[in-house]
């Protein structure tokens, strides 16, 4: 699949479908040490565009998506910035207005299909309820549509499946059901939060394929949250790489895979196992763990793990610099000549 979006960053003249501006999310009850989970994140999604949000656990990518959906708990969480959708800031929207939007305009597929479906309600009801919530249809009509949806996500014998409970379905089937639920009302934006990580490797590809097809059919924009660059390569037009609550590199897929600039992106790319690498060559891993970070206020959060660290990295926080085809937040970025081969050809398949 190839989609061509030549430019990066803001598309001048076109109103983005979703514009996230300086989003900040802080956790912590009164009197407790607070944690900045999302720290000034800015990105756009154009209508129909597929955007990846990539990072390790704890980078704040899931929190970002929950903030967009308005699904963060209200207590102990402070959210600021802007999530502009259709000219409205979703962060200012009341609960009832937001709930009318959810499922109809913006829908979400969650990570774990085993726990994301209600175990005591039939699959049919769980699909049909979102249809009847946002459409003026009869119960029967909603149910028929639910059956059609199940068929579209590739569930055999959908009429029988409607009457079954989640525990009677396999993990892959359940994730298909969740995709059906998310796409039931033809949303304009679908957020998929690591939709395949909980599945068997063999099932992952199938489910991704279903997701890809349906998103293409419905012309929805896609925000793909993942740590898997393979998924990005197969699905996304543009990619935002997050580290410790901030976006560190933002560019098109092609640019990212051919010339990553941020050492973290480079590290992610090199840690993908490759079939054509010489035998016996050790797999590359980014040293350290995502918990060993520097606060962004004191420098670059990635500095403790970075191979290219220079004095400036622990001295002052790097700013996001606009390089035309990309944005990058680094004091000492990789040069195009640096040895990171084009990983895309390998993982794009």
């Amino acid at each position, binding site marked *: 699949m190839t989609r061509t979006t030549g430019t990066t960053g803001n598309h001048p003249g076109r109103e983005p479908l979703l514009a996230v501006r300086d989003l900040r999310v802080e956790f912590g009850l009164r009197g407790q040490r607070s*944690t900045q989970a999302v720290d000034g994140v800015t990105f756009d999604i154009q209508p129909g565009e597929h955007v990846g949000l990539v990072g390790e656990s704890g980078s*704040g990518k899931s*929190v970002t998506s929950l903030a967009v959906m308005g699904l963060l*708990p209200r207590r102990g969480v402070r959210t600021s910035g802007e999530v502009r959708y259709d000219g409205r800031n979703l962060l200012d929207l009341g609960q009832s207005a937001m709930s009318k939007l959810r499922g109809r305009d913006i829908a979400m597929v969650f990570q774990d299909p085993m726990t994301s479906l209600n175990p005591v309600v039939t699959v049919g009801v769980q699909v049909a309820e979102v249809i009847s919530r946002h459409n003026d249809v009869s119960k029967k009509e909603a149910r028929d549509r639910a059956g059609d949806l199940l068929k579209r996500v590739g569930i055999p014998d959908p009429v029988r499946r409607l009457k079954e409970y989640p525990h009677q379905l396999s993990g892959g089937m359940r994730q298909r059901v969740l995709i059906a639920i998310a796409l039931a009302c033809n949303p304009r934006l679908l957020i998929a939060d690591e939709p395949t990580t909980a599945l068997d490797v063999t099932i992952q590809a199938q489910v991704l394929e279903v997701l890809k097809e349906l998103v293409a059919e419905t012309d929805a924009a896609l925000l793909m949250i993942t740590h898997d660059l393979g998924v990005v390569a197969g699905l996304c037009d543009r990619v935002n790489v997050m580290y410790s609550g901030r976006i560190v590199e933002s560019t098109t897929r092609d640019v990212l895979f051919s010339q990553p600039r941020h050492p973290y992106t480079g590290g992610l790319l090199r840690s993908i196992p490759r079939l054509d690498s010489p035998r016996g060559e050790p797999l590359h891993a980014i040293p350290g763990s995502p*918990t060993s970070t520097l606060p962004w206020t004191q420098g670059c959060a990635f500095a403790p793990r970075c191979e290219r660290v220079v004095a400036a990295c622990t001295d002052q926080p790097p700013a996001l610099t606009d390089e035309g085809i990309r944005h990058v937040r680094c004091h000492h970025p990789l040069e195009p000549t640096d040895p990171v081969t084009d990983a895309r050809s390998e993982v794009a398949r």
Partner: protein
Amino acid sequence: MSIPMMPAGPGGPGDPGGPGDPATTMLEPTATEHGTSLWRGAVQRLRRNPAAIIGALIVLAFVVVAIIAPLLAPYQPGTGEWAGQVTPGKVPGPSDEHVLGLDSFGSDMLTQLLYGARQSLVYGVVSTAVGLVVGASLGLLAGGFGAVGGRFGKAVDTLVMRLVDIMLSVPSLLLAVSIAAVLGKNAYAIIIAIGVAQVPIFARLLRGSMLAQGRSDYVLAASALGIRKRRIVMSHVLPNSLGPTIVQATLNLATAIIEVAALSYLGLGEGNPAVAEWGRMLVAAQDRFAVDPRLAIYPGVAIAITALGFTLFGEALREALDPRSRR
């Protein structure tokens, strides 16, 4: 003030869940925490919990009062030496000599209450200890044999648990009543009755947590290493299973104190009506209740507050020991 009572779900407020949440990934203590640090951590959590502190203060006050009752009490208990002042229509209320007035047998109310604490402490602690020792032994037997398996182990487990099932098929108050009714009206009867009624709870609890521990990976690993079964059970499975049992014992102290009073109320308590025992005092006060509620309210409130103390402390302890509620 919020009084946390139960582990109310993972995290509660401020827990956005999901792997992308730095709050959980960064603040979580390492998974290897166990043994002494579990208890040390629990003590720390208890000290931060206002409910635990209130509970502990009540328990402490109760125990101290019970122990030094002879020093605190202005008179001797159960003498009825002012019985002459008690008429069918009236029991003298608070006065200079008797701060809380007299009881219906003509003894000093304050003295009776203080000595009543003593009685409750002895009954409560000893009966719970009986229940704990017998119940935990049965649980250890069943759980120990059940945890390490084998046909023989299964048989022991089954046999013990059938006995426990039989005891559990009767509500514990009835069990206590049936035992006390046969043993007669004396202190031993009450203690045995209430103690035995607690046996099935402890047995099932300890067995359950031991079996759960027995299925855990570290036991599997230990048996794979060829460590002897008895050693695995005694030095790994048992210590790791004791937490819930200790919590239950604290909570049972509250129940035991209430049940002592209930047995008294049913006429199965201490035989001597003048003895300073809270339940007994409640019963004695009942006839005069409409005219002189004071007589019942003092002992009733004393029971309730003591039970509250043990319950608060036990609940807080449960929460502190629950790995899920650790923050």
